């Protein structure tokens, strides 16, 4: 009896493992898909950049991803979109679950240890989102005594803590939706992260007209295309991005994503963004 039970448990565990394995190869797409499709990681919760409504992704990241995939020879229906939250991006790439990532992915040296980058296709900067009628917050130096909201564990929150936290009350929330809720409710005076993400949040119908981006950036975030370590596609992707900018499709996608917010990206850094060397 004892043995039967153990065997049963092993069988159950094996079945569970097989089921899980089956799941991951389905999601991966790279396994049986081969050259027939491509899996691209995006954010699902950043309106204006990477946003999923039903099965339809929208946003600037998505438009650039579609264009680049097109140049690499994949039509739109060959793309499988996969959510890639910040904390999982390196793992998704190194385990081959996604082929490339367009998800407000700033190029840093620590990340280069794990993954490779093409691009950047955009250079964002940390900025502040405030109520539309706010005039006393004009930049990071005017935050003394104010309540500021950012996302737990984000680069933006850490920069505020290290460089400005003396006089700032920092509220850390799990997501930007909570931060914007608190901003619209008046509990916090400002929300901080990359300017283009703020513009996307401000362009949402629920917030339109209530908030504005200050437009005084205090960092440089180079949004790269995340690739598996030592990928050979970096140069081809850089060419595709160059072509997209030259054709005007890049500007068009940017304008659509941030329509109605009056947001203007940092022109010095984005005309066009300067590529990082591919062999790093």
């Amino acid at each position: 009896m004892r043995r039967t039970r153990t065997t049963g448990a092993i069988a159950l565990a094996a079945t569970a493992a097989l089921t899980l394995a089956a799941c991951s190869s389905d999601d991966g797409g790279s396994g049986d898909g081969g050259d027939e499709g491509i899996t691209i990681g995006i954010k699902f919760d950043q309106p204006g950049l990477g946003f999923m409504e039903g099965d339809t992704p929208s946003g600037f990241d998505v438009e650039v991803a579609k264009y680049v995939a097109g140049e690499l020879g994949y039509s739109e229906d060959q793309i499988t979109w996969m959510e890639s939250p910040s904390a999982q991006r390196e793992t998704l790439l190194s385990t081959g679950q996604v082929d490339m990532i367009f998800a407000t992915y700033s190029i840093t040296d620590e990340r280069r240890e794990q993954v490779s980058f093409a691009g950047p296709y955009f250079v964002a900067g940390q900025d502040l989102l405030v109520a539309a009628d706010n005039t006393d917050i004009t930049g990071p130096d005017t935050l003394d005594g104010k309540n500021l909201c950012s996302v737990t564990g984000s680069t933006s929150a850490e920069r505020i803590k290290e460089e400005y936290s003396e006089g700032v009350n920092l509220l850390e929330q799990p997501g930007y939706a909570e931060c914007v809720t608190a901003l619209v409710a008046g509990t916090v005076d400002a929300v901080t992260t990359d300017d283009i993400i703020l513009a996307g949040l401000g362009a949402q119908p629920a917030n339109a007209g209530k908030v504005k981006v200050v437009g005084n950036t205090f960092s440089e975030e180079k949004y790269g295309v995340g690739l598996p370590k030592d990928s050979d596609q970096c140069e081809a992707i850089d060419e595709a991005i160059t072509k997209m900018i030259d054709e005007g499709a890049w500007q068009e996608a940017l304008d659509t994503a941030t329509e109605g917010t009056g947001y203007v990206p940092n022109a010095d850094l984005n005309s066009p963004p300067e590529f990082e060397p591919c062999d790093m």
Partner: protein
Amino acid sequence: MAEYLDIIREYDVLGAFWVNIQLAFWAAIFSLVLGTLLALLRISPVGSLRWAGSAYVTVFRNTPLTIIMVFMVLGAWGQLQLTLSSDFNVNFFWLAVVALTVYHAAFVCEAIRSGVNTVPVGQAEAARSIGLSFLPAARMIILPQAFRGAVAPLGNVLIALIKNTTVAAAASVATETSSVMKTMIEFRPDYIYAIFFTFAIGYVILVTPVGVLTTSLSRRLAVAR
């Protein structure tokens, strides 16, 4: 390895665990008090009090802790201006303790009630027959025996509470473990597996003694019947 130890020191991983231990400590004390009161309500002879007790348990046992945490920040603090400390960050620590308390009190209540069920009805009848009313009978006869029978389930609640302190990240307690882990993964993805295992092992070290202790206590304290 040496570099990784530097990273652990830089991000104050031990300090993060200390924050979670403090959260668990205060929430454990308050939820034990509140849970005992709720258990008294649930075994009281007055129908409306029993109803109030079971209504509380039903509501809070079935509400996700994350939602209570988010409510404490966006609702209780954000809209109702509830402030528990004049220090901006300490305020969130106590809001998180309140959320952990109201949630786990429901489970403490049920653990104690399960302990009450181990006390034979004859004990309550004997207490009544010597002229004790409900509260003295509960205090002197029923609860002391009930707690001894409830050690193991209370230990399980405590273990759940320790692990649930990580949900305080949702209440802007940014110095606790899951927030620090998020920050570390954001900035040092080159050590992602080491970071993950550090925190996983940290919780095993933290929680295992509680399990061992309550199991042995529950054996030693059980009332032989």
